[in-house]
């Protein structure tokens, strides 16, 4: 301590002038802060890019291009079409003749060839035929038909198809687009909301225009029903045991470690489990929403258990003591007092778990719930669980994996539908939390 310098501490300079070293350090500080802002900015930027590409590419899926035409088919024409060998072709021809006549009458396209109309319209014959077979009274009357244009015309309106890309195409010729423009101006070709997309079923690989997500929404619904009915009671029961009754021993330790590990097991592994145990071993039907629901239940359980335990833990011990103090059994204290108080938190956690399960794809592929299975609506409520069906995310995957570009639009549209469901579920969870959350 005899050191001379030790007895006279360093004199600092004035506080109001920043020394160079402090300047450097403050610059480093500003840089570091900027990295943080940049990181957040990047994250948000990615979010914006994702959102815009979903909306920009997905919204067109909800509209479709239609040709509306007033038509009068006489009994003679009907009989003639029905008498031929190729009935739908006859109707197509009938339609084209009538449209061509109308066009020439309106002076839109004197030079419009019939095959150009055929290319624009795609296949209209079967729609017409089934209409007249169901409504024979309409024969001889004037009926307004609204029929889908071919998927390439649809693509023209959605920017997928233009004159350059049509050079080598025989399905639609560049000059046809002039006709399309003229028809649009005349109000014959219009775009309208595509209810078929929301209510439809998956269509074949050659018919992107007819594909809809309706059937797989139903598949998802039945799956979520299974998940809800199984995972909520099992999850709550398991959490009550672990949080309120479990003695601290090896067995509970193993269960605890197990649950946190299960929450991090890749979802595809649950798919393998479902395939091996539920389909190979237990012999449950393939592609059934029931099996999908079982697999997703096992996958969601850890999440629900973890959040339920958090809500149970948040109920203060004084509540339990109060119940026990008036002579309730431990079981009564938990079921009468703790559980109702924790219920909003448990529900919130469950909804969030369900939302996760709703978006899960990989395990469904392994148990056969791929998109092309969703060709039919289930016959009834019980059948809804066991008849082959798909689910929204698996349907989206199937569309994305097809080679026709028109299906990509459907996939993006499907994503919007899926996200709307997720948004609703999360909104309900947030409202529940806001409205019922109790701070102790």
């Amino acid at each position, binding site marked *: 301590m005899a*050191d001379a310098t030790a007895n006279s*501490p360093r004199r*600092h300079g*004035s*506080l*109001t002038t920043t020394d160079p*070293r*402090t300047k450097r350090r*403050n610059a480093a500080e500003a840089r570091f802060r900027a990295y943080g802002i940049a990181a957040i900015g990047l994250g948000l930027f990615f979010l914006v890019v994702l959102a815009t590409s979903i909306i920009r590419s997905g919204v067109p899926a909800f509209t479709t291009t239609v040709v509306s035409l007033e038509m009068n088919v006489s009994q003679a024409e009907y009989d003639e079409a029905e008498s031929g060998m190729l009935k739908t072709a006859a109707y197509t021809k009938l339609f084209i003749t009538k449209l061509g006549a109308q066009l020439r009458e309106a002076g839109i396209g004197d030079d419009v060839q019939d095959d150009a109309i055929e290319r624009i319209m795609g296949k209209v014959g079967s729609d017409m035929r089934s209409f007249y077979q169901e409504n024979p009274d309409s024969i001889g009357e004037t009926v307004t038909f609204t029929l889908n244009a071919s998927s390439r015309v649809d693509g023209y309106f959605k920017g997928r198809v233009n004159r350059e890309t049509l050079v080598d195409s025989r399905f639609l010729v560049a000059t046809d687009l002039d006709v399309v423009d003229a028809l649009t101006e005349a109000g014959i070709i219009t775009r309208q909301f595509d209810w078929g997309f929301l209510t439809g079923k998956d269509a074949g690989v050659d018919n992107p225009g007819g594909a809809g997500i309706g059937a797989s929404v139903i598949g998802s619904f039945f799956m979520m029903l299974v998940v809800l009915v199984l995972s909520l009671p099992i999850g709550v029961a398991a959490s009550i045991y672990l949080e309120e009754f479990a003695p601290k021993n090896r067995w509970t330790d193993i269960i605890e470690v197990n649950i946190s590990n299960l929450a991090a097991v890749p979802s595809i592994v649950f798919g393998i489990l479902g395939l091996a145990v539920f389909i190979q071993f237990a012999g449950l039907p393939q592609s059934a929403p029931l099996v999908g629901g079982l697999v997703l239940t096992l996958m969601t359980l850890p999440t629900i258990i973890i959040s339920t335990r958090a809500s149970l833990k948040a109920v203060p011990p004084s509540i339990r003591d109060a119940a026990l103090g008036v002579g309730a059994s431990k079981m009564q204290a938990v079921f009468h007092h703790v559980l109702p108080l924790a219920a909003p938190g448990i529900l919130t956690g469950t909804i969030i778990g369900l939302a996760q399960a709703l978006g899960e794809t990989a395990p469904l592929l392994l148990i056969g719930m791929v998109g092309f299975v969703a060709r039919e609506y289930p016959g009834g409520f019980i059948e809804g669980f066991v008849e082959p069906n798909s689910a929204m995310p698996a349907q989206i995957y199937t569309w994305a994996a097809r080679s026709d570009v028109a299906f990509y639009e459907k996939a993006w549209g499907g994503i919007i539908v899926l996200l709307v469901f997720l948004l609703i579920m999360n909104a309900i969870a947030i409202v529940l939390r806001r409205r019922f959350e109790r701070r102790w």
Partner: protein
Amino acid sequence: MNDMRPLERIVDTDNIKISAKGCQVYYGDTHAIKDVDVQIEDKTVTAFIGPSGCGKSTFLRCLNRMNDTIDICRIEGEILLDGENIYDKKVDPVQLRAKVGMVFQKPNPFPKSIYDNVAYGPRIHGLAKNKADLDVIVEKSLRRGAIWDEVKDRLDAPGTGLSGGQQQRLCIARAVATEPEVLLMDEPCSALDPIATGQVEELIDELRSQYSVVIVTHSMQQAARVSQKTAFFHLGNLVEFGETGQIFTKPEDPRTESYISGKIG
């Protein structure tokens, strides 16, 4: 300076290190410190005493702008350090804190080795030109923290592995290593046992030879033992400030007397 008030006349104006004028502190809507004027001398131990929640710790943290880290805290009035207002816009709190060091209530060594704990300050302030220099500073600081003999053989051991009293002396050594001019101590002994408290108090007395030390304490005995000047705070007001002996033997304000005799607090 011709309208000096009585309080200021009794201190040696040449030797004033910190002086606060009309200092107000608000926490959101709460008025935590009300119009405090105080003059703290160099090479003196000044004790802040008062019941819990009286604002003594808050005021202490104003002296090196530690309250800046709390969003809702707002300070009015001025605090001069060597005649410069530390709340001036041009003042960098980082430079200020290098000059006004602080020791906290609970020993808070970093999860690093003992050596790195002490070397942390000199490193960030660039006080050492090389490793040898740094070694000298570390040893000097540890000696001044009266802990060198206990740790010299295990400088690489983690600082968190020391006992409570040792940790606190390590924190004092760490504060001393940046060569501050003022040392603020916020109840430095409240988490320590009596033996460790004795060691730290002894150390504070030694530090007085070079630093202006301000200590907040809830123990009146401790204030009486280590300080030369004492300030009594009550409900955010500075009630009385003067020579320690005088405050404890014949306080002027009835509130001080009540507190010292154990009627309030």
